[in-house]
C-alpha cells in the first residue's frame, strides 16, 4: 500500500476543535464534515486538498475532544496519511478505527515542509520527500492494519472477517 501527495504543514497541538469545530457537529455526514475540515486553522484547506495529500504536524496532533468526526472529515477530504511527532491518544485510536493511516515520525515531521511532494510506502514505513530528495523511516504498517485501512475501517474489517 502506497500514498503520494502534497503536504499541508501545521505546528504543535492541532486540536479536534480546529480540525472540525463543534458548530458543524449537528451532522455526521462525512462529505458535509469534509467541506469544513481544518476551517478554524486553515480556511483554504477544504478547497485546496487533493486526493492523496498529506498532513504533517508536530507534537500532540488531534488533542482535545473525542469526536471521531475529526479523522473522518480528513479521510473524506482526501487525506491519505497524517504524519506527526506524536498524536493525542483518542485521535490515534479513532484514526485507525475509521481507516485513516497515521505515522508517528519526529524526523519526518521536522524534515518535511508545506507543499513538499511526499511518497509513503506503508509496507516498510518508508517516507520519501520527493521535493527535497530526503528519506525517513517510520513504522511499517502490519498486514492486518493495512487490510483494515483497505476495508475502510475496523467495522468493515470485522464484518468481512466474521
Amino acid at each position, binding site marked *: 500500500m502506497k500514498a503520494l501527495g502534497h503536504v499541508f504543514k501545521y505546528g504543535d497541538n492541532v486540536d479536534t476543535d480546529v480540525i472540525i469545530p*463543534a458548530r458543524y457537529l*449537528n451532522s*455526521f455526514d462525512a462529505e458535509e464534515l469534509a467541506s469544513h475540515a481544518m476551517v*478554524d486553522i486553515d480556511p483554504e484547506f477544504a478547497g485546496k486538498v487533493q486526493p492523496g495529500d498529506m498532513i504533517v504536524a508536530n507534537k500532540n496532533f488531534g488533542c482535545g*475532544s*473525542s469526536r*471521531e468526526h475529526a479523522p473522518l472529515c480528513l479521510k473524506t477530504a482526501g487525506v491519505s496519511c497524517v504524519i506527526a511527532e506524536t498524536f*493525542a491518544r483518542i485521535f490515534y485510536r479513532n484514526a485507525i478505527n*475509521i481507516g485513516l493511516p497515521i505515522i508517528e515520525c519526529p524526523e519526518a515531521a521536522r524534515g518535511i515542509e508545506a507543499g513538499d511532494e511526499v511518497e509513503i510506502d506503508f509496507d516498510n514505513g518508508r517516507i520519501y520527500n520527493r521535493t527535497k530528495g530526503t528519506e525517513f523511516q517510520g513504522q511499517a504498517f502490519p498486514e492486518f492494519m493495512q487490510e483494515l485501512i483497505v476495508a475502510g475501517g475496523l467495522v468493515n474489517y*470485522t464484518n468481512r472477517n466474521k
Partner: protein
Amino acid sequence: MGMTMTQKILAAHAGLDSVEAGQLIMAKLDVVMANDITGPMALPIFRQMAGKVFDKDKVVLVPDHFTPNKDIKSAENSKAIREFAREQELSWYFEQGKSGVEHAILPEAGVVTAGECIIGADSHTCTYGALGAFSTGVGTTDVSTGMATGELWFKVPGAIKFVLKGKPGDYVSGKDIIIHIIGKIGVDGALYKSMEFTGDGIENLSIDDRFTIANMAIEAGAKNGIFPVDGKTEEYLKEHCKKEYKVYTADEDAVYDQIVEIDLGEVRPTVAFPHLPGNAKTIDEIEAMEPIKIDQVVIGSCTNGRMSDLRKAAAILKGHTVHPDVRVMVVPATQKIYKQCIAEGLLDIFVDAGCAVNTPSCGPCMGGHMGVMAAGEKCVSTTNRNFVGRMGHVESLIYLASPETAAASAIAGYIANPEKIGGDRV
C-alpha cells in the same frame, strides 16, 4: 512487579492476576456512555454489529451538548438516541428536564462508582476517576463496539504519580490545582498515561474538587486521572449510588514513569490563557499586567457546574452587580443542582447580580449554543478548553479559571483576583 491503581482495575476487568504498562488487554466494561453528538453516529455502526446492547443497565445515553435542541439537525440527532433508548429499554437515558451535563449527572444519579471500568464517547469521561474508577474517553467506533459487546481492548498505560501535600488556600480550588499541574507538565505531559493522584493533601479536597481535577486529565493528554477511595468518596457513594463498589489501591512497589510533588498550599488562583489549557498564569502574574478586559463569563460545565462551584461563585457575587460591559451565563450542571440553587437562594443572587441562568447543557463550552462569542470577544470561563474557536469565532479568546475567579472577573469587568473581591467563604 507492583501495579498502579489503574493497572489493578484493568487487570481485574481483563480477568488477569497482573498487567504491566504497554500490555494489550481485552477488558469488560461496567458502563458505556454516549451523548447527542457521538451517540447518533454510533447507532448505524452498532447496528452492523448487534441487534441488542450487551446490557441494558450498562449502556447510557445523555443528550446534553446541543440540548435543548438548537436546530432541526440536532433535534433529529436527539430523537435518534431517544428512540434507540426506548427500543433497547435502556435503564439510563437522561431526558431534558430530568438530566444534566453527562459527567455531572452520571455520578449524581449513581450510574458510576468506584472500581469500575468505564468508557464514554466524550473525552471528559475521565471525570469519574475522582471516585476511584478507571474511566476514559473514546470515539464512536469504540463506543459502538462497547455497546454491542461489553468489552474493549486497551493498551495498559504507564503512570505519573502526583503527590498532593498540604491544604489549598482560601479562593483556591480544584480548577486552580489542575491548571497549575497542566502548566507544569504541559498539554501532552501525560500523553497515553494515567495521572494517579495520591498524598495526604487529598483529604483537603472535596469530591467536587476531585471531579474538576480528574475531568481535565485529558487536557494533559492523559488516558485517565484517578483518585484513591477515602472516607469522603465512600460518603459520596453512600448518598448517590446503590451499586456495590470495589476499592483498589496501588501497590507499594508500583512503577511510575515520573513522580511530581505539588504543595497545595503554594497553588495560587491560576488562569489558563488562550489557546491552551497549559498556558497557566497565576493571579499575581496577571495583576502585574495591564488589566485584561472581558466581554463574557461562563460559570458551569462538566468541569465546574456542581453545587460547591456555584456556591463559591454566589458567595462572591452576593450583593454585587455584574460589570455593565460583561454578559454572564451561569449553567447549573444538573436539574438537581438547579433546584438546590433555588432552595439555597443562589438563583436570586445570580439573577439580582445580572447573570443569565441557563438550563443544564454543555452549550457554551464548545460554542454549541447559548453563549457563542463574536470576533475579538474575550471570555473568562470555568470550562475546560480554550482552543482557537472553541466558544465561537476564531478570533475570540477564552481564559479558563475557577468559579471564584470567574465571579470576581464578572464584577470587575477584567480578569480579577477573587481574594480582593472577597465574599463569604464556603
